[in-house]
């Protein structure tokens, strides 16, 4: 291979990066990213410790009060950053412990596969010790004996970085028996997956961790009551866990203050944009930052394109319109608009993009990734794809749109074991709501007004 081809290939290699330079990031305002380096190299243990690393663990061990960790996390109200938005502190408060209850497991959900989401990759690839520090705090709070980082198999670099960081943490006395002389034992192993989006669903993840097919489990019992191998288990997203060290070190009030007056949801958030914008990327910003501010940071739409619609946080969130750009992007506000914050990574849709084609692409994804456990999901999603393909090619039939309405409703909450089908329904339903005329144009023989009544 010639030198030029090799260097051309090297330049095409994907590298995760944060768009904000080091000079803009401070411990007080950017707890998730202030330690990241401008050169994108990994912050290894020595540098991490120099940058106040593991101070929250030191503090928590000295305090020796796991219930206080839970109380602080509850007060901080850190909404689950995997997209669910459920308070991590509340989740931790519901974990069974004490009495005869055996110690359970702490699972970091690093199965990042939500279309449009690329934030956990950055945290793991460049700042593995923050993930580990968050996991130790969570283990202390939940009395977990062992931790797993459930990492998607394709994240090869993250796996390599995390494993080396785990070795460093063990050698440094931050993991293993009697951490820092506290009498607390905890260790972590990276469990790497072998594909399938459904593994990110927390009960399917537990089945996958146990070496089974990744079908979801019925809840209750919730993982905190009976999770991996029947033990109390806590599953938290990477970014959620990365929030814990700052909260424990600086307190719930400080955390709430990070988002200022923007929103009732506290903290900072790794937001991002992808699609046809000038500068797609990631930024750590106060929770409740508006879509307009984020889009502005991305330099706006590429080559003067017009924005038609956007997904606020991945494929399983609902479409929003340009008029929604001024909304605070937090769990509550976006939820009120019939969408969800999801992962907080925006996907923009330009004016010339057919919504029918895009929704077809989304539903193909959900249909392919359905685990097949529940009928509405297994049979309903391929059916939506079939109808959407027909509409896309102008071969739709009268009644197709009503059929899509029905299929989406049948995939709604509480019809299936997990949130996969409801996640698939949301972009479909919101596209039908906001862009119904585009779908109607795919019907080859539109019904008459009379028949419609």
């Amino acid at each position, binding site marked *: 291979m010639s030198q030029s081809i090799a260097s*051309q290939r090297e330049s*095409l290699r994907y590298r995760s990066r944060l768009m904000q330079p080091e000079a803009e990031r401070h411990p007080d305002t950017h707890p998730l990213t202030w330690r990241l380096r401008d050169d994108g190299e990994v912050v290894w243990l020595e540098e991490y410790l120099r940058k106040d690393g593991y101070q929250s663990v030191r503090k928590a061990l000295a305090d020796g009060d796991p219930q206080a960790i839970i109380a602080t996390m509850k007060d901080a109200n850190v909404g689950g950053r995997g997209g669910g938005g459920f308070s991590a502190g509340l989740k931790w408060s519901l974990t069974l412990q004490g009495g005869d209850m055996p110690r359970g497991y702490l699972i970091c959900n690093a199965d990042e596969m939500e279309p449009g989401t690329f934030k956990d990759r950055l945290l793991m690839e460049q700042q593995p010790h923050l993930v580990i520090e968050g996991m130790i705090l969570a283990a202390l709070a939940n009395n977990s004996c062992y931790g797993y980082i459930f990492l998607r198999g*394709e994240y090869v670099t993250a796996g390599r970085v995390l494993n080396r960081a785990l070795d460093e943490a063990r050698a440094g006395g931050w993991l293993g028996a009697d951490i820092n002389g506290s009498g607390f034992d905890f260790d972590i192993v990276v469990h*790497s997956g*072998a594909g399938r989006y459904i593994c990110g669903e927390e009960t399917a993840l537990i089945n996958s961790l146990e070496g089974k097919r990744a079908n979801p489990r019925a809840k209750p019992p919730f993982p905190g009551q009976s999770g991996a191998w029947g033990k109390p288990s806590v599953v938290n997203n990477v970014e959620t866990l990365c929030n814990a060290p700052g909260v424990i070190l600086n307190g719930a009030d400080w955390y709430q203050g990070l988002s200022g007056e923007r929103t009732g949801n506290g903290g900072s958030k790794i937001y991002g944009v992808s699609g046809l914008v000038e500068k797609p990327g990631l930024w750590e910003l106060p929770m409740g930052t508006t879509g307009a501010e984020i889009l502005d940071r991305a330099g706006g739409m590429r080559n003067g394109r017009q924005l038609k619609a956007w*997904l606020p946080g991945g494929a399983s969130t609902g479409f929003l319109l340009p008029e929604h750009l001024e909304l605070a992007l937090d769990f509550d506000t976006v939820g009120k608009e019939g969408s969800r914050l999801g992962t907080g990574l925006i996907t923009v849709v330009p004016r010339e993009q057919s919504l029918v084609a895009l929704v077809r692409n*989304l539903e193909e*994804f959900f249909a392919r990734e359905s685990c097949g456990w529940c009928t509405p999901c297994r049979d309903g999603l391929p059916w939506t794809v079939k109808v959407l393909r027909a509409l896309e090619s102008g071969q739709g039939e009268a009644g197709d749109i009503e059929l899509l309405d029905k299929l989406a409703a049948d995939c709604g909450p509480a019809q299936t074991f997990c949130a996969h089908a409801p996640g698939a329904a949301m972009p479909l339903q919101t596209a039908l709501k906001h862009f119904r005329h585009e779908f109607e144009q795919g019907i080859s023989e539109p019904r008459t007004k009379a028949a419609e009544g």
Partner: protein
Amino acid sequence: MMADTPQKTALIGSDGFELDPADETAIIEEMDHYERPQAACIEALKIVQRRHGWVPDGAIAAVARVLGIGPGEVEGVATFYSLIFRQPVGRHIVLVCDSSACFLTGFEELRHALVEQLGIDYGQTTTDGRFTLLPVCCLGACDGAPALMIDDDTYGPVSPADLPGMLEAYP
């Protein structure tokens, strides 16, 4: 190897497959990380796959034996996960991200170019046994869309014109 292979029957595990001792050791080490050996199932299949490129029928029974579970359970797992291959694949796996961010930024052109240059579609392997082409869930490289992976390497953004030089690095 072929001469010693017993007659193939419909039963899983009857095709004379033997686990490499190093692989068996690696699987047993993996089992240590979990409360039950079954949890090492996916990793065990990946260990087999690293050596053979795919998971042959006989490996199902061999892995089941090491883990102490039924071959049906191992087969159920092997057929569930998209990155476990139950048929022979090429020396290099090309995973094309077809999720929303890539779809919006030129995935279809990239896919067409790959299909054209490799002469294969999804799930197929080039006749020289070099490449297998597969779709993949969002690669988490959306700020570098459209993205693809070849073996352990992630690339993006990739244009059709980049493909010839890129593929050349994978003989």
